């Protein structure tokens, strides 16, 4: 029986077409479903630069988005098709320039920076409504900004350093109750911290940290710890023990071996949980409001809530500008360090 000879070229051509078709369908699908996610972001951005006191010009909104959305889609396509970094950068620069020109032409006259006056004007509320409105208690945005920074940065510092030490210890030492300890770490994840708001309030009240920034810093540190310890344990498990032993026969003490040899190898894990921890602290709202009685401290989330609150009369331009200012740090952090976050799934989470 003769075996039918195959037309290899035709087969190859067919599978190439199928692959290209599948890619095209996938990219279109992702683009379509990402529009509702991306669009509000552009709205907020446009509103913050264009809205005049009170109202929002929806015509401006649509025209601006009509420029920005195609520009972003064009860049995504360019990013997927161009392989070299230099070409991608070139495409990005060209598209930015084009978008700028198009924006100037379409909405140029409507753009202004007035909504960002809160950055330079310490007496925002007083100027708007007269001194009595907020009882003179509403702060300048920078005070809230630095408070948020303090909460996010110090809670991150605490949880990352504690999680690193604990993760190392659990990964390397066999102590009594080790597996029970590991299981209890996971069980803690079952309880959402908000369920514990009242006990936490009482504890913070009793130890006298109510109405201080130390309260939310402490609570945020504790809430994330179990999960972070678990992640760091996974990263330490992935470091071969013989590298550490080699350092110790090379003359290092255990601490020096940890510091010089083991720690650099879990760097991406540390960066990843730092980003997660920082964004968590930066965005925190529930506990910063729960642990103050009155206006003892302001952070960015409470500031935004206050600006958006009725007391002010809703000024969309101002709310949008504050929102843009508020999301900038976490957005930048995420953009520059996201490659470490994606490693969480690789080296990270495993028993």
């Amino acid at each position, binding site marked *: 029986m003769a075996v039918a000879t195959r037309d290899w070229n035709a087969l190859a051509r067919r599978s190439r077409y199928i692959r290209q078709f599948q890619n095209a369908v996938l990219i279109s699908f992702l683009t379509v479903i990402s529009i509702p996610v991306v669009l509000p972001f552009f709205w907020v951005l446009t509103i913050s630069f264009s809205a005049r006191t009170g109202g929002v010009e929806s015509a401006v909104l649509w025209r601006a988005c009509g420029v920005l959305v195609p520009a972003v889609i064009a860049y995504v396509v360019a990013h997927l098709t161009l392989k070299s970094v230099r070409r991608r950068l070139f495409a990005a620069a060209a598209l930015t320039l084009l978008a700028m020109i198009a924006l100037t032409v379409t909405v140029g006259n409507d753009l202004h920076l007035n909504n960002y006056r809160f950055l330079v004007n310490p007496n925002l509320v007083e100027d708007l409504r007269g001194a009595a409105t907020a009882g003179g208690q509403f702060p300048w945005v920078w005070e809230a900004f630095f408070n948020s920074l303090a909460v996010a940065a110090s809670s991150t510092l605490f949880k990352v350093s504690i999680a690193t030490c604990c993760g190392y210890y659990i990964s390397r030492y066999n102590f009594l109750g080790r597996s029970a300890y590991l299981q209890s770490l996971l069980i803690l994840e079952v309880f959402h911290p908000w369920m514990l708001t009242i006990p936490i309030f009482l504890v913070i009240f009793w130890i006298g940290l109510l109405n201080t920034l130390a309260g939310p810093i402490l609570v945020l540190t504790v809430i994330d710890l179990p999960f972070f310890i678990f992640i760091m344990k996974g990263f330490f498990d992935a470091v*071969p023990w*013989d*590298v550490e*032993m*080699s*350092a*110790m*026969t*090379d*003359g*290092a*003490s255990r601490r*020096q071996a940890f510091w*010089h*040899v083991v720690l*650099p*190898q879990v*760097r991406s894990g540390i960066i990843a949980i730092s980003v997660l921890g920082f964004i968590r602290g930066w965005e925190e709202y529930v506990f910063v409001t729960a642990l103050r009685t009155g206006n003892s401290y302001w952070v960015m989330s409470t500031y935004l809530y206050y600006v958006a609150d009725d007391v002010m009369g809703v000024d969309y331009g101002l709310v949008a500008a504050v929102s843009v200012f508020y999301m900038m740090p976490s957005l930048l952090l995420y953009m520059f360090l996201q490659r470490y976050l994606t490693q969480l799934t690789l080296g990270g989470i495993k028993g």
Partner: protein
Amino acid sequence: MAQIELRSVSKHWGPTVAVDGMNLALENGEFVAILGPSGCGKSTTLFLLAGIYAPTSGDICFDGARINDVEPRDRNVGIVFQSYALYPNMTVLKNLLFPLRFTSVKSEEALRQAKAIAELVQIEELLERHPSQLSGGQQQRVALARALIKKPNLLLLDEPLSNLDATLRLTMRGEIKRIQRELRVTTILVTHDQVEATTMADRIICMNAGRVEQIGTPENLYRKPDRTFVATFVGSPPINLIDGHVRNGSFAVGQKRIPLSGSCRDADVTLGLRPELISVAETGLPSEITNIEPMGREILYTAQSEIGLFRFLEATPQPRMALEDRVRLHANPEDALFFEQETGSRIEGLSLAAFS
């Protein structure tokens, strides 16, 4: 350089006995190989010497002093791990400088020593690379250089050649031996490859299941194996072993009787005879060829005799014999070794009086 001693050292992992009452003494500057099958406790012995594991019982002595409680960092031992264990976050140069970081050596002097050791193992051009950018053989050289840079008392090599290809293994075998001779550092090489052990070491420690089976020169282990295990583990192709009994001064298998030289009480014994020592001749043990395996330079034949299967080597490249040929096997009767079946120990002074 130091004189190293293990005095009935044991290491237990719960119920597992990894090393069982090991006694060992190394001379200054000696090159010793630990040879044994996988899981027999070779790596554990090395880690006991390096101080990574603490012995369950027994003493480890350097230059006569007991050092059980001395920290690994204070023992001045250089070790090359099976996986090389280079520091992935440092360049090759930083890797080499790492052991000097914790000593009083000045940084220019350290740099000079690093350059010198890099030259010795021939990796001068690689100093700025990271370990992930090196081939297996290069990594191995870096690991060796790092173990040597602080002039260790004792150099420990844990199967350093097992990750290399055959040609590179041959080169590195010579290299390691050259470097060891140049530096005269006391060295222990762990391997499960008998060729590696016999070609490189002055003495071989043959281990099995945590116990030392025999310590001796490669020659000694090959010609006068103390135990059946050593006889089978050393030598390739493996030794011919034939089970039988001593009956009234002759070796008995089934109906066949072969006279013995030397005296022995009646017992169950095993006859051992190396394939290299058997040849085909006019007179001798009648046999029939059952298998022919050409191995390039020589041919390995298998022949069925009255007392059992014998494998033997013929140096000619062309088969002189065919399957089912009837031949006579010849061997010097005094080359035959006898082992007690019960204990596995060799019976000193017993051999055959004739081989026919």
